[in-house]
């Protein structure tokens, strides 16, 4: 790589992102777009992801970033990537780093996890130094090389990045321990100098992979960096290494330093200021001692944090005056297209919906059926029929209506193995197919000839009744105009003398519970006409259900037109489909239980009458 040693990142840096952290990756790509560089993420590593790529935005366009199972694999396919953004959890970050140590092309590893065991952190640091690799972290937000490369979430929102001038290089090399104050320092530098040239938050752990000095020695060699700012903390000795380097002339550029935690001297060990690690183990480690040592070595140390901006401004203007810092021409910043979902949430844009749903809602604390939470459905003891009422017809059925629906479902649940639907189900199950396929082949036979009579009966009886046809006129009409038998009339064996008990029960229920049974009464008049011609032309189960459903919906306040729409939509047939599915599933399970072999229809049951086409 043609990048000088003192730079960890430039405009061409490509990184491998360990962990499918969509938000952080998108933020990096937004940054890339704003600073006008190509996407900085070459690949993602996510061992448990089943996907092989993920889509992201780069400006308004979408791009695809491949996902790999291991860092080694990702590195092999992306030899240009020399940065690993190790966003693994505290449990996994250590092995992920060890794996990256074995990949020669990886030069810099950023570890964000907090809570990595110190023993592991220290070992990673030692090994990285031996291998000549750079670790930033653990427990850090990362850092930024303005105009070139942003580590994940460093700098916060794009608005803040631009406001803090982190979108183009300035003259300051910044090192902090805290990630929380990184933005603040960038802001101070943007307001009192010309912005950050490179900024690194080394992380709050006891054994950071690299220290202030490691990065400041790079800054010393980097001609873009004109002066440096170090924000340290009470605890540890890392600041003293910088003090020594300044004394020894290893660092010659101006340095501004400040250690936070000067308050602790007033309260001794009694009060824990800041996080638990920020505690002075000895006098040397207090903020005051470190500020004093820095000041004595020639580092510019303010009297307090509030004076820091003045010191920064002073050094900046001095270097400007000496001609060491040239004025910066501010680049144009392309606007980042706003995320649609966010804009909608904030009420900034509006968008038509493609779908409408009026029966259920899964967005709240609990899913609802027509506004009724499922728990309430259970607590109030609603039946299957009540649930059908809510989800199919958007109303709470009165008891008499749900009682009838429940009866219908029970009545139509099965009719033996020989009917076409059950037969199909059994044959399919025996072909080794699954539940869905077997059930579907059964349901697919339901139509005008099988099970469809409920719809037909409802439709024709209703029409005749509304047109005030006499039963005789109706029978004639069906024969001469529609040219079909009256749906819902006729049974294979049952007759007036041998009535169908199921029909008797349905009729009895309706008589006792329905407010009105106009259409049933009419149908029974029609039955009188048909049975006078032939004994078995009775109102059968389908017919009874069909006409009673019409009576039911009328009683519920549906208009004649509403009911026609229901019938056309197949809503009446739906009761048969639902009920009979119970039977089909039973037949399927029966076949599986019996473990029957593939069914082949016997040839002696088929009339073969095959002739070769003439003249061929």
């Amino acid at each position, binding site marked *: 790589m043609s990048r000088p040693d003192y730079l960890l990142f430039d405009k061409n840096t490509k990184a491998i992102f360990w962990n499918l952290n969509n938000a952080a990756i998108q933020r990096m790509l937004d940054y890339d777009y704003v600073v006008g560089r190509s996407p900085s993420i070459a690949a993602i590593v996510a061992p448990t992801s089943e996907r092989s790529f993920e889509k992201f935005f780069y400006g308004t366009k979408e791009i695809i970033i491949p996902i790999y199972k291991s860092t080694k694999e990702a590195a092999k396919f992306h030899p240009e990537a020399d940065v690993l953004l190790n966003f693994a959890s505290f449990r996994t970050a250590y092995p992920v780093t060890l794996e990256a140590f074995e990949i020669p092309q990886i030069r810099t590893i950023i570890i964000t996890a907090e809570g990595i*065991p110190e023993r592991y952190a220290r070992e990673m640091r030692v090994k990285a130094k031996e291998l000549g690799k750079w670790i930033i972290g653990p427990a850090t937000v990362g850092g930024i090389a303005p105009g070139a490369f942003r580590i994940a979430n460093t700098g916060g*929102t794009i608005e803040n990045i631009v406001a803090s001038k982190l979108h183009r290089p300035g003259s300051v090399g910044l090192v902090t321990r805290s990630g929380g104050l990184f933005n603040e320092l960038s802001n*101070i530098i943007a307001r009192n100098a010309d912005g950050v040239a490179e900024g690194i938050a080394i992380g709050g752990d006891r054994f950071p992979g690299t220290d202030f000095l490691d990065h400041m020695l790079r800054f010393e060699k980097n001609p873009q960096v004109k002066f440096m700012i170090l924000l340290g903390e009470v605890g540890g000795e890392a600041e003293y290494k910088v003090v020594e380097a300044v004394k020894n002339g290893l660092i010659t550029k101006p340095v501004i330093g400040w250690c936070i935690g000067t308050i602790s001297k007033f309260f001794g060990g009694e009060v824990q200021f800041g996080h638990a690690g920020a505690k002075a183990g000895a006098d040397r480690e207090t903020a005051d001692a470190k500020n004093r040592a820095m000041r004595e070595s020639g580092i510019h140390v303010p009297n307090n944090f509030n004076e820091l901006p003045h010191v920064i401004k002073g050094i900046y203007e001095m270097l400007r005056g000496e001609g060491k810092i040239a004025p910066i021409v501010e680049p144009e910043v392309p606007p980042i297209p706003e995320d649609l979902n966010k804009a909608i949430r904030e009420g900034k844009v509006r968008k038509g919906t493609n779908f409408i749903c009026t029966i259920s809602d899964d967005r709240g604390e609990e899913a609802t059926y027509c506004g009724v939470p499922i728990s309430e459905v259970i607590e109030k003891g609603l039946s299957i029929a009540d649930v059908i009422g809510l989800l199919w017809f958007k109303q709470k059925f009165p008891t008499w209506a749900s009682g009838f629906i429940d009866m219908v479902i029970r009545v139509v649940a099965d009719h033996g193995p020989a009917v076409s639907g059950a037969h199909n189900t059994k044959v399919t199950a025996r072909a080794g197919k699954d539940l869905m396929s077997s059930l579907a082949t059964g349901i697919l036979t339901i139509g005008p000839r099988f099970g469809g009579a409920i719809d037909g009966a409802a439709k024709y009886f209703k029409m005749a009744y509304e047109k005030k046809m006499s039963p005789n006129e109706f029978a004639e009409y069906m024969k001469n105009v529609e040219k079909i038998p009256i749906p819902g009339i006729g049974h294979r064996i049952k007759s007036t003398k041998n009535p169908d008990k199921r029909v008797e029960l349905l009729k009895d229920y309706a008589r006792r519970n329905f407010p009105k049974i106009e259409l049933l009464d009419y149908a029974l008049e029609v039955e009188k006409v048909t049975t006078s011609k032939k004994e078995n032309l009775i109102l059968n189960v389908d017919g009874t259900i069909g006409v009673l459903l019409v009576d039911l919906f009328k009683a519920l306040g549906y208009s004649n037109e509403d009911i026609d729409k229901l019938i056309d939509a197949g809503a009446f047939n739906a009761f048969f489909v639902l009920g009979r599915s119970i039977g089909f599933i039973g037949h399927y399970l029966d076949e599986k239980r019996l473990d029957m072999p593939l069914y082949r229809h016997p040839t002696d049951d088929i009339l073969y009458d095959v002739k070769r086409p003439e003249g061929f």
Partner: protein
Amino acid sequence: MAQRGIREYDGKRIIAQNWKDYFGDTFEYDFKSVLVTPETDFENLPKEHPWLLEMPLVAKPDMLFGKRGKLGLVLFKVNKPGDVTYQDAVNWIKQKMQEEVEINGVKGHLTHFLIEPFVPHKPEEEYYVAFSMGDEGDTVYMSAFGGIDVEENWDKVSEVLIPPTATDEEAEKLIKSNIPKEIKDKEKYGDFVVRAYKMFRDLHFAYFEVNPLVMVGNKVYLLDFVGKVDDTAAFVVGKKWGELEFPSGFGRDLTPEEKYIKELDEKSGSSLKLTILNPEGRIWTLVAGGGASVVYADTVADMGYVNELANYGEYSGNPTRTETREYVKTVLDLMTRNKHPSGKPKILLIGGAIANFTDVAKTFDGIIDAFKEYAEKMRQVGIRIYVRRGGPNYEVGLKKIKQAAQELGLPIEVYGPELHMTDIVRKALEEEKAV
């Protein structure tokens, strides 16, 4: 967190539970310790630990602080060493629990004690061994002169640095070749130290000190143990630690308000911290973020007003509106109990750095809720509010809080990132001088 002090009792318990894995049958350790707390039932304790009635005892506080011998807080004799009975120990502990004591300049109450058998031994049998974790590696400390005067004899302690990547064999070699010459049975002592070091390393101890260590034959007595573990390693070795509590150590008794916030903090995924420094102080802080909170406290002190700094605290990690409200109410309640004797208004600094992704407007909702509840008291006491914050949605947040305060008749100044973070401290103190 990271390195956490553990009780002597827990340290010895961990060692005893893992003894076989590290010391096999080469050394024997008869673990006899009981931890006594204010909840302990002294009547029934001997039923669980019959040895309490069978042998002379030693009792001492187990609250993370050292030099207990020098502080006169080790009971090992009534009339002569080794004559402490169970009843003596119980009486002594009960009495000590009631007294207020001062340890390292901090006043408070003793709550946790350890009772163990008294082990008669000669001073020359007292060895010292300790392990610590440092930048360049682990350090092993070995000495033939254990006991309470080890620090006076520090020149006799042999220190060995074990590099972080050293193998077990390399560590063993380094330890065995550096055993102090004064130790009589070098082989036995060395063998013990090598095994203990491996335990220290494997079980993610950060500090491990036995002083004195008494060895009689193959029997080992850990008369005093100080330990820290790296609590982040709980996912690696938590099972081997067993149930482990991390006490905050001996400290000033918490005020009810501090206790309330501590409980809130423990229940929450966010961080809520409150320490009362001086309830009569006039400068109160409500700061978001650990780093920023320190900077605000620093700045008040550096400007010469440390005596007026009433509290230290921080809230961070996206607390809910309710949590923020409770936190702020607690501070406002303390702040509005009395007018300041000088008659001057009190100062409330609502500060914070530029947030990364925390929605500032949302956080301020909780503060405004608390303002509404305490507005009258705040007006009575006289409070000037200074706000400075940046980050997502900060303009909306600042506008809201300004409007709310004005409607409630509370004097307020609000600033965003255009003002230096701690400059509200300067502004508040300058206006203060002008008053």
